């Protein structure tokens, strides 16, 4: 789709004032839901997404059991009020595909062999959507898995890049996603330097393809620092940081 208006001004600033390689504001919080074994909330641009993890738990129906590893289930779902026009709550084809790619982006990081014959459920609920909701969802979901204490090889973090006004830019918002000419969500395991999700649409020269892909990885590393901080905040400074000195004395 061609742009109907200019998305990048003459000063090189985008509609919301960002530079071409600048991320939107991101905040992350771990462990907000009481019932879930792990949870994380992400506020990324206008995205507001809650991810919850249940498990490892018994697999139902039983015929889905995997004898050598955990079954990881995932669902990406958008609330009817998360978009401008009410969305039908039934899962759309888009949501079914995103649920699949999110699952395939997370499994490589989970040590599924440690939990044979169990199910690990990852529920991603988009309360308000903006551009890049799948990568924001993955970023929150991997924190929720870590919060649930599930053995992991690495965190998974995502960032989307794309082409707007014939220029490679980082972290597309809603307007840039809809009116721009390309979107490339990428998820990585930052310490293992492996890509776990890659989707591309738009027209990229070979050089722009590489530029956008490498930018997505570099920006993902920035988000990874925030992920670590959010985990540390819960586990090393909050109430859940283990027994206090007083309790240890009683022991």
């Amino acid at each position, binding site marked *: 789709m061609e742009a109907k208006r200019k998305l990048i001004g003459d000063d090189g600033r985008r509609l919301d004032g960002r530079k071409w390689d600048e991320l939107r504001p991101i905040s992350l919080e771990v462990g907000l839901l009481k019932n879930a074994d792990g949870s994380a909330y992400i506020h990324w641009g206008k995205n507001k997404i809650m991810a919850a993890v249940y498990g490892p738990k018994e697999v139902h129906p039983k015929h889905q059991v995997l004898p050598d590893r955990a079954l990881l289930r995932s669902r990406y779902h958008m609330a009817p009020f998360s978009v401008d026009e009410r969305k039908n709550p039934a899962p759309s084809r888009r949501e079914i595909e995103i649920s699949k790619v999110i699952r395939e982006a997370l499994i490589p990081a989970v040590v599924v062999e440690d939990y044979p014959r169990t199910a690990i459920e990852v529920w991603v609920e988009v309360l308000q959507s903006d551009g890049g909701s799948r990568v924001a969802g993955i970023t929150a979901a991997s924190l929720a898995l870590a919060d649930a204490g599930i053995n992991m090889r690495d965190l998974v973090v995502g960032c989307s890049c794309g082409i707007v006004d014939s220029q490679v830019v980082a972290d597309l918002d809603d307007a840039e996603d809809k009116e721009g000419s390309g979107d490339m969500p990428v998820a990585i395991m930052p310490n293992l330097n*492996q*890509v776990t999700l890659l989707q591309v649409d738009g027209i990229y020269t070979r050089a722009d393809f590489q530029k956008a*892909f490498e930018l997505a990885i570099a920006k993902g590393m920035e988000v990874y620092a925030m992920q670590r901080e959010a985990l540390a905040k819960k586990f090393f400074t909050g109430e859940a940081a283990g027994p206090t000195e007083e309790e240890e004395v009683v022991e």
Partner: protein
Amino acid sequence: MSMKKNYVVEIIRKAQMVELLAKGKRLDERTPDQHRPITIQTGVIQKANGSAIVTLGNTEVIAGVKIATGTPFPDTPDKGLLVVNAEILPLASPYAEPGPPSEDAIELARVVDRGIRESEMVDLKKLCIVEGKTVYTVFVDVNIMNVDGNLFDATSYAVVSALRTSKMKKYAVENDKVVMKDQEIPVPVERTPVSVTLARIGDTLVVDPNSEEEGAMDMRITITTDDDGNVCASQKGEASTISPEHVLEAADTAIKVGNEIRAQIVEATK
């Protein structure tokens, strides 16, 4: 679709494949960047506006195009509709079942649709008859007839071949009315996108995996390129990873192999 069953035989098969791939060989004697033979037959369904049967090795698919008129989407009043859909028929494989489309079938249809749409293969503006009121609606439906791996590419080639050979009724606006003319015109095809799927088996990327290779693969990546060597769409699949270096290698292979296949599609649909 990959029919991963994790049988011991598959684990042995995979070990054998990895060993051969280290020497640059595959079980069916192809080189890593060699695709299976492709056959393209167009105009096979007379009642469709265009159609194609494509075989890629033993994988066989049939695409049919049906074109009608309808109202455009409110946000694109000057563009026609183009929808690609794919279904894995129960007659295509012992693992396929009738019923609502599986997650795999939805992904297949969406990835193929993305390649056609994002490459701007069809000029949707030329499918507009009266802005905001009447546009051509082009539906491309693909039936998978026989599964032997790499449905993504076979489906894409069938859609492209069918669209390139489709004819549609001409419409004219006379006295504020849309009138069908007794004349057929081709679909406004501007570009020829080509999808190339690679599987990573161990440390090697192979082009166009067959069923056996899909059973042993760690992951796959589909990359669609256009006539000018641009990347238009991509999708990584399966629950494993790919290194950044492999992604760039896959893009270069997709451009190179895509050029060869494009020449064959263009020749078969002249």
